[in-house]
């Protein structure tokens, strides 16, 4: 896997080309995987006398996918910047409570509630981004800590469900356009914007650049801190949207029921399943959506086939590892290598006997640069 990153960041001069090319390289595979899941799933269902593509099941898949989709789109942005966000579940809970208590059953207060929910989420994102980028605290700890802070606040201030979502806003959670739930439609629209932003706008290119190699990005004039902060704000706002969707579906705002649901790790799994490198710099929203859909199809299938919920966990675990192992196989590129100053499971080059690292002085130079850069 990491060798993929390696390829992405090859040489400083190539960074720009990589930006444009990268979203395309791993996406076809994920769509093949999605197709494969659908075919295998449909076959298994058919054996049991069911139809995976029945209207009910399609609605079910899309409904299940929309919530995780929102969170995973945001998570994609942070992971592209070689950060990560473990606070998404807590932010969603916070946003649901703030929005629901602000609306309080009054349809005229819906815009205010939405604004409040998303605004609070954006503030958390700002906090995550600033602490990560400016204070140089690892995002793992920043977002885990931010999550704990929010958890304590929610448990103390809202000991249970609070607020009331007016019927008009519950439509966000329950309306369907034909077979497509409104929430899924909105999620897909945001995903399209996400794809366009990453591929066509300067901000998107910066995200790839920062994730690919942040000191090179910096040397080429990108304000890396700002990009990381922006990605965190985006991620939190998307988690806030997920919180709004949950509030609409629940008719009220809740805390523990949302933050205990494991959206943090689920969303990271979906992003990585979608072909985005955990080390940043490569991947994209389109792949993430495919990853989310795969998980949605699996869930629906497991339910229809009456698979034991515990066995579901086992299967999910194996599928996630296997999928990423397959990507990693494909992306091994022994001719390229780069060293990187620590982040997550960074710098695994040379960790196998199979791809001897290329002894470039270049990587060490950049390494030194990396330290220098971070020291300011």
């Amino acid at each position, binding site marked *: 896997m990491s060798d993929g990153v390696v390829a992405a960041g090859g040489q400083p001069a190539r960074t720009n080309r990589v930006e444009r090319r990268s979203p395309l390289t791993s996406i076809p595979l994920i769509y093949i995987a999605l197709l494969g899941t659908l075919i295998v799933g449909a076959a298994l269902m058919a054996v049991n006398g069911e139809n995976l593509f029945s209207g009910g099941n399609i609605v079910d898949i899309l409904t299940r996918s929309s919530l995780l989709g929102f969170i995973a789109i945001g998570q994609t942005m942070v992971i592209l910047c070689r950060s990560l966000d473990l606070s998404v579940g807590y932010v969603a809970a916070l946003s649901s409570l703030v929005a629901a208590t602000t609306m309080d059953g009054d349809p005229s207060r819906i815009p205010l509630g939405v604004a409040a929910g998303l605004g609070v989420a954006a503030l958390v994102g700002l906090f995550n981004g600033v602490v990560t980028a400016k*204070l140089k605290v690892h995002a793992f700890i920043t977002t885990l800590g931010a999550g704990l802070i929010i958890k304590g606040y929610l448990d103390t201030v809202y000991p249970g469900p609070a607020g009331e979502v007016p019927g008009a806003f519950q439509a966000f959670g329950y309306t369907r356009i034909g077979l497509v739930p409104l929430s899924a439609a909105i999620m897909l629209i945001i995903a399209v914007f996400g794809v366009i932003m990453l591929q066509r706008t300067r901000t998107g290119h910066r995200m790839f650049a920062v994730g690919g190699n942040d000191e090179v990005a910096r040397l080429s004039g990108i304000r890396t801190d700002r990009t990381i902060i922006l990605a965190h704000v985006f991620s939190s706002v998307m988690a806030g949207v997920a919180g709004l969707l949950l509030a609409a579906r629940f008719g009220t705002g809740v805390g523990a029921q949302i933050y205990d649901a494991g959206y943090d790790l689920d969303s990271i799994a979906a992003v990585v399943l979608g072909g985005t490198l955990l080390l940043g710099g490569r991947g994209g929203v389109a792949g993430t959506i495919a990853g989310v859909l795969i998980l949605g199809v699996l869930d629906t299938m497991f339910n229809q086939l009456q698979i034991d919920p515990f066995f*579901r966990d086992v299967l999910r675990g*194996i599928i996630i*590892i296997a999928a990423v192992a397959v990507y*990693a196989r494909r992306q091994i590129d022994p001719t390229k290598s780069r060293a990187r100053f620590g982040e997550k*499971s*960074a*710098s695994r080059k040379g960790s196998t006997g199979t791809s001897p690292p290329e002894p470039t002085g270049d990587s060490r130079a950049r390494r030194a640069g990396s330290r*220098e850069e971070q020291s300011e």
Partner: protein
Amino acid sequence: MSSASPAATGPLGAVRRIFGGGTGPVFVVLLTLLVVMLLLNPSFFQPASLMAFLRNAAPLIILAAGQYFVIVSGEFDLSVGSLVGAQVVIAAKLIDGDESRTWPVIMLMLGFGLLVGLVNGLVTTLLKVPSFITTLGMMLVLAGAIRLWTGGAPTGALSESFRQWGRMGIEVPVLRQIPYAALIMIVIAVLTVLLMRGPYGRTLVATGDNDVAASFAGAQVWQVRTLAFVLSGLLATVAGILIGGFAGVTAQVGDGMEFTAITAVVLGGVVLGGGRGWIVGAMAGALTYRLLERLLVQLDMPSTLNPTIQGVIIILALAYGSRRLWGRRRRRAAQPITTKPQPSGAE
């Protein structure tokens, strides 16, 4: 890998290492918490209370030592929490209250911990799956498989000879009772510190710092990392034995301990991404985490607020720690980087 490394050998070096390296903040926090504790509840420092505290902190300290190996090599192990839970449930189910099965089952558990670590390590190094994902998958697999096996709720019972390790201790004057858990923790601390001082430790840190360079230097990087995962699996098993022994078996054992262990290690000045940090710092981080929890119970306020305070302190300690680190990096960056990283004294 502290900048104080050249001097780290002498007694002065030890002092500098405690308060000078990336480990500094954790000892500051630890001392602060001890002072606050002294003001709030002096009876905490009575031998019996201290021993009870150590008994409680020992499993997390051991878990943190295991997590340290993985983190310093540049990886993550998210599977330790569910491994602890799985081990306790396995023990209860297989021992089923029968004293004679205690030792065979403990051997089996150690074997299982080793196997889980080995799988984590090989999938990460040979299949090149990022360890975050490998161990996240392992976490799901273990949690699901163990519940599948027991039908959702643990069955069986632990034997007294199994439980004594987490529950009993050696009776001595003054201290009343030294818990076995504390003794086991100290033995593990000594062994792991020695391991980190030896060739393996140096290679491990070098690998985490720069695996390309480490492999030039002749290290079998994949073996080094796999062994780190195996150590983590083994130590998680030991922690599981102590936790199961302390409180018996419930369905929730081990829940969320992976995040606690990682937080403790990072609090101890070990840098996520590898190559930096001292194992003693990691263990001190775990001790600090538990002390903080204990302190929060003493404070007269809603216990629901505890996570908030934990979050604030963790972020502050890390922000402070990385601020110190920048200063050093600036100095370091001014020097030419040696081709072969010499993780001298970096444990």
